[in-house]
């Protein structure tokens, strides 16, 4: 099977679905780029992260739509086009830009189906690049998926690798609800085996990345690899873990987590977001309610601190939860239940 980066895997999915379904359109800033430029090159960009490369030449400017810097209008236009029968993919570029476009996401597309009594759906995929680690500063580094997972009516996808990203994107493109598709910037170049063809991954099905006996580790997006490192480091001491990657946080496959906790009795959650009202706290709360009897030790959450993302390398490194911190948390739950 070919090795592909997450960047190419998502691009693959867009190519496949745009070829299959003429209702799919893509819109956003510089999704092709070059409009109004002096070189005449019409695909001068293909998306600031290169995810929409090759779409304009193949599908034309009616379906691959460069927009002004107007995120509310982009999100709103996606919502309106969906009501009128299209299936838009709207690129928000940095997830942080939800600030200038939240209304169309959380008051409009999220609520249409319910508010209008089920008489319409709103099949929009919003693509959001997220995450710290590249020293992009406080306004370009956030992982705001908890904010959107809190919103009824939205589905929220947080892939951790190229294979999942492609399958989840194809599912997103065929889903009738608005889907927030979070792409961690640090994962774009990471490669794994990804089939060329069409395949889907169901929302709400976690992936069991590692199997073990002692601790259940739940990790999201970039934290999955970090958790793997932590788990590898523990093997020498005979500590083995289930590593669960929920892949989608709304819906959330809480059953897989609960089953694992039933076996291990111990839970560590690793999440790049700040701690308050986070996915880490969300999962911890569900387990404290529904899996309480299985727990042998306090739940440990490994998160970013309750601070904005700092710029300097040294500070940002300290901000992002590290494999070491995950490892320590695992050791701690082992100790506390010894």
């Amino acid at each position: 099977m070919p090795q592909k980066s997450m960047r190419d895997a998502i691009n693959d999915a867009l190519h496949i679905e745009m070829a299959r379904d003429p209702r799919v359109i893509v819109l956003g800033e510089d999704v092709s780029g070059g409009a109004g430029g002096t070189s005449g090159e019409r695909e001068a960009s293909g998306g600031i992260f290169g995810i929409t490369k090759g779409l304009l030449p193949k599908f034309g400017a009616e379906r691959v739509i460069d927009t002004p810097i107007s995120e509310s209008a982009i999100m709103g236009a996606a919502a309106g086009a969906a009501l009128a029968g299209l299936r838009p993919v709207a690129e928000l570029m940095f997830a942080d830009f939800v600030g200038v476009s939240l209304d169309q996401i959380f008051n409009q597309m999220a609520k249409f189906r319910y508010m209008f009594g089920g008489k319409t759906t709103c099949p929009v995929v919003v693509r959001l690049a997220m995450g710290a680690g590249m020293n992009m500063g406080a306004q370009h580094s956030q992982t705001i998926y908890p904010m959107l997972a809190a919103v009824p009516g939205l589905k929220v996808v947080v892939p951790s690798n190229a294979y999942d990203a492609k399958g989840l994107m194809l599912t997103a493109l065929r889903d009738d609800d608005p889907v927030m598709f979070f792409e961690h910037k640090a994962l774009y170049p990471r490669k794994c085996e990804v089939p060329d063809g069409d395949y889907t991954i169901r929302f709400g099905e976690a992936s069991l990345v590692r199997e073990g006996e002692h601790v259940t580790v739940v990790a999201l997006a970039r934290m999955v690899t970090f958790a793997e490192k932590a788990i590898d480091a523990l093997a020498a001491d005979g500590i083995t873990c289930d590593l669960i990657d929920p892949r989608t946080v709304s819906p959330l496959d809480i059953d897989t987590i609960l089953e694992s906790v039933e076996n291990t009795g111990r839970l560590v959650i690793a999440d790049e977001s700040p701690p308050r009202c986070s996915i880490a706290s969300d999962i911890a709360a569900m387990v404290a309610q529904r899996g309480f009897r299985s727990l042998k030790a306090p739940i440990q959450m490994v998160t970013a601190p309750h601070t904005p993302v700092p710029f300097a390398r040294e500070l940002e490194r300290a901000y992002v939860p590290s494999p070491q911190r995950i490892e320590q948390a695992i050791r701690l739950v082992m100790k506390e239940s010894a």
Partner: protein
Amino acid sequence: MTTRPTPITGPLTRERLLDAYRRMKTIREFEERLHVEIQTGSIPGFTHLYSGQEAVAVGVCESLATNDYIVSTHRGHGHCIAKGCDIGGMMKEIYGRADGLCKGKGGSMHIADFSKGMLGANAIVGGGPPIAVGAAIACRNRGDGSVSIAFGGDGSANQGTVFEAMNLAVVLKVPAIFVYENNGYAEHTGASYAVGSNNITTRSAAFGMPAERCDGADFFAVHATMERALAHCRAGHGPYTIEAMTTRFYGHFEGDPQLYRAKDEVRAQRESMDCLKRFAADAGQHGISPADLESIDSEVLLAIDAAVSEAREAAPPAEADLLTDVYVSY
């Protein structure tokens, strides 16, 4: 009232005019009746009445087809009726009944009817225009000459999302028509204060689209302006703006003491800016007699009566409906 499978063009025939009058009168009576019913406490939530602005909704929607879209506002009843929504289903929605147009989940500020090209009212000021531009992208891509209309008030013309929508429509050259109903107020603040330029038309023009002001109390003026807008948009020349000068006969929402308004303002406007009176005055020229209008009037009143009594009697949603029409499990 029905919607038309294809747009009408050509002269305003007697039949079309009678239909337009019926729609305007239906809106008026719908709202006047709501004004009364709301006092009884039987209608949940808060409601914004459209009385006084009927000629705008009907002048804009008169010739539209089902596949032309409209996106509406918090003050949306008139737009719905003008676009052909069933008044029974609307009334039930406003009462919060199970077979309201949105199953009682939306309410007065969230009526939609996709089968009529009515893409939804919106309780967020400025929420609609970006959505209308999205629908206009769909119209453009279909290439069938259909258009998408964003209704908004003078107050909405200060919301950033609205400016973005206008610029995007110009850039993408999509068939979107921005209809600003300038009724002089946004809640308790005058347009002459809040619209810094005191002119919405010139703003739209500066975004790069044709823009016209018209008398919103005059059905014929609104209609003629809309014909120009439609010709422009259906020919693929991009968006258009209409600013209709109008007034509302009631407060911002029901219960507003209207301290911001001069004592006699509404009374005077009910004389000088009543689109129904104006229409009746002009109707003779089009071969329409007072008796024609009176017979419509009585039909309309009966229809509204029926809508209200049916809505009163209708069943509320079942508690189980709370969890339908949305993804809930987790």
